[in-house]
């Protein structure tokens, strides 16, 4: 009875919020297909008067889109590798290895989540410049090899759910600590690792402040930052800007759809309990 009454209400709320979130995206996609004049004359119209597909090739050719895309992909792939490697190793140490001061250090790691990005911005900039990484993509990739508090926390919590007996069975079978990590824990943590990889990919894809701070050579700009450059130089061609924005958003949406299966997959620890 209660459920029957709750469902329509819940549905309404869900649909309403879905619309609120979807409208800007729909408007972006539709407007990216409008002729330039329609946007200035009648900015609130929904459907294009004429479906102008040429906006897309025009947008790509009016900026070094492919170069930006390449830079973005280098950033994304590099930092995904960095995050997954460093965070899984650190999380394993926090979850499964007993050592003095572990809990205190874990507290400190978690506490770094409270530091706003801006607080460490200048010291971090100075440090990376000192290392000669200013104006290189490495300035944005190398730090991910040093771990991220949130990802470490996420993976640690996941590792803790994997029964200790599996590690012990591995130890009896002759695995080293590294073997237990790489051949038992990692294969069982695919959902959590996918989550970390996806989050890091999206963060790097969308990262604007990082490139703004560390990159000065337009040849090295990633998409997010390149798009901003596009806005300043083509301010009157909103339709091209929106076409570029759509192209920018599309891969992330596709990636999410592809990954969401693994992402939402239940924890594969069945086979343990009788």
């Amino acid at each position, binding site marked *: 009875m209660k459920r029957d009454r709750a469902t329509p209400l819940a549905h309404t709320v869900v649909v309403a919020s879905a619309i609120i979130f979807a409208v800007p995206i729909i408007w972006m996609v539709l407007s990216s297909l409008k002729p330039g004049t329609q946007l200035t004359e009648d900015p609130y119209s929904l459907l294009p008067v004429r479906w102008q597909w040429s906006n897309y090739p025009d947008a790509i050719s009016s900026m070094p889109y492919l170069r930006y895309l390449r830079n973005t992909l280098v950033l994304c792939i590099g930092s995904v590798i960095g995050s997954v490697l460093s965070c899984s190793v650190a999380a394993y140490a926090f979850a499964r290895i007993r050592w003095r001061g572990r809990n205190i250090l874990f507290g400190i790691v978690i506490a770094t989540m409270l530091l706003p990005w801006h607080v460490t911005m200048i010291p971090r900039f100075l440090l990376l410049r000192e290392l000669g990484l200013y104006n290189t993509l490495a300035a944005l990739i190398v730090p991910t090899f040093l771990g991220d508090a949130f990802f470490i926390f996420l993976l640690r919590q996941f590792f803790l759910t994997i*029964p200790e*007996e*599996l590690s*012990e*069975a*591995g*130890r*009896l*079978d*002759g*695995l080293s600590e590294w*073997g237990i990590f790489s*051949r*038992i824990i990692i*294969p*069982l943590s695919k959902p959590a690792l996918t989550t970390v990889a996806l989050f890091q990919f999206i963060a790097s894809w969308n990262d604007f402040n990082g490139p703004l701070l560390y990159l000065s050579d337009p040849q090295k700009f990633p998409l997010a930052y390149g798009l901003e450059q596009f806005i300043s130089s083509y301010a009157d061609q909103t339709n091209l800007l929106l076409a570029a924005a759509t192209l920018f958003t599309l891969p992330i949406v596709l990636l999410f759809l592809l990954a969401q299966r693994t992402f939402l997959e239940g924890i*594969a*620890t*069945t*086979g*343990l*309990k*009788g």
Partner: protein
Amino acid sequence: MASVSIEGVSKVFAGNVEAVRDLHLEIHDQEFLVLLGPSGCGKSTTLRLIAGLEEVTSGEIRIGDREVTHVAPKDRDIAMVFQNYALYPHMSVYKNMAFGLELRYGGNWFHRTWKRLTSPTEFAEVATKRRGIRDEVRQTAQVMEIEHLLDRMPRQLSGGERQRVALGRATVRHPAVFLFDEPLSNLDAKLRLEMRKELSKLHQRLETTMVYVTHDQTEAMTLGDRIVVMEGGEVRQIGTSMEVYDQPATKFVAGFIGSPPMNFVSGKLTRADDGMRFVSPGLEVSIPEEKEKQFTSGSDEVLLGIRPEDMTVQKHSTVQDHPNETLNFGDISLVEPLGDSTLLYVEIAGGSSQPKNGEITLISKADPRTKFEQGDRVALDIASEHLHLFDPESGQNLTMRG
């Protein structure tokens, strides 16, 4: 095939928790030894110390004629079956069984490549062994009757099948010692019975030393060549099922083994010309001469222990004609029919003339065909040759033979 000897082993966990205290244990070659005790008694820790999953705080462990106190688990020539089976969920049954052998014969790809480059002859040897793994696994699977499961993943198996696979994984390595950590406690009652039988058969077939941890006394009694009863990190008694049952060394052992548990009544011993008697409010029993001879204590304060089946209950009216001095009287407060027997809870009234005080309740196991009802006045006939006297302080059995 090997014996295991544990010499003065202690284990103290962080926070000064002493899980095992100065343990001495000789496990004979090909013996099925059961470690029995309530949770927290140190039985699992003992097993994990033998396995090498825990480091001893002090003492020495030997397997066969080798000292293994600080040897890595994989080099101890043991195999362990865990309570939750601990099958690798991401590997097929075949892979689960082969994994340990693969690691033993050459480890990972990197190790093998290294071997191939540094010592080709040794590599060739290992490679031959590796090729034999498939047959070895198949053979064991056949014997364990899990051959049809080899391609499945653990999550596709039922509880009983997982159990079998876990046993198979342990067997395929041909260890000198098998270690079992409550392997049957996740199974339902019927399967447990079946697997218990199978474990016995496995032991007979493999003729290997087995150490088995359980809190289930039935498992312990049926499986073990010898039972080690543990409490608070210490061994209370070591003996065969019947020894532990008939001659419990302490009150703890007496109360832990047997269901329903042994009855305990505290009282005094009095000595007269016609022998020794146990006297408590409501209960008087004469101690047989044999027990009196065994009795070794200065104090007269004792705890009488008598098993429910060593006590016969008769309806009051049927015994009035021939009074017997060992008869005591009581009222039935509860009747629990179990089918094969009936449990009677008898409140001791303290002799027929006294008003009932209801201070002591004894449990008696009676023939289900004699009908008793709540409130019946009954006479208790205690088979005094089977009673035990314990020291109320230390719990020691004061009438132990030998």
